[in-house]
């Protein structure tokens, strides 16, 4: 979440360079909405079906405090 705060704070720099930040996690849509409220300048997305994270092999097992999996912290630049 610290990285999201830093990205959110620098949103003007990204906007000037026409770069869009999409922050993805395995959390539910409801949790994504809460995160969106915290970081309104970013695009927060839910990958709760794991469609993207599994295809990119970005699942980090047993790293959630509740015992589940999470996305391995990664940044991917796409055009």
């Amino acid at each position, binding site marked *: 979440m*610290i990285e999201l705060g830093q990205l959110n704070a620098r949103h003007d720099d990204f906007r000037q360079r026409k770069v*869009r930040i*999409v922050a993805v996690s395995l959390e539910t849509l409801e949790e994504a909405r809460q995160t969106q409220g915290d970081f309104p300048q970013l*695009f927060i997305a839910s*990958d709760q079906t794991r469609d993207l*994270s599994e295809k990119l092999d*970005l699942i980090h097992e047993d790293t959630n405090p509740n015992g589940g999996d999470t*996305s*391995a912290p990664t*940044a991917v630049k796409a055009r």
Partner: protein
Amino acid sequence: MATDGEISTKDDRAKGEAPTPKRSAGRGLYILGFFLLLCGPIAYGIEAISFEHLTVPWYMPVLGVIGLLLMIVATVRRWSVLRIFGLLLFGLLPFGEFLFLWSHSLLPKYDGPIAVGKPLPDFEIELASGDPFDNTDLLDGSATVMVFFRGRW
């Protein structure tokens, strides 16, 4: 007559004052070090359990090392079986804390399909607004950085 743990001087006796209690050298330092040693894990436990807020607890080994140094200094100033026992018992704690941070900061080696110049596979995720986001949204001319994060905890 002075009892064990007390000293009195001729001047004290002459003045009729209460004898000055004898303090073991470095006891306060040792207790402070022990307190700092335990402070890190306790603070991290409170942060994680009570506030459900997880951060990288760099303060934990730092406090541990400071506490351990204070305990060592106190033991050098005046050693006792109890102090040495405490050092042996808790001395490895800061190293364990460093090991904990180091092991949790490692990520598994990436052998996945992402590679420079290679297109992303077809995918669909859901934006917080409820709108879908897929490959076609990456073709609108603007660069996109997809940041994968663990979660809002």
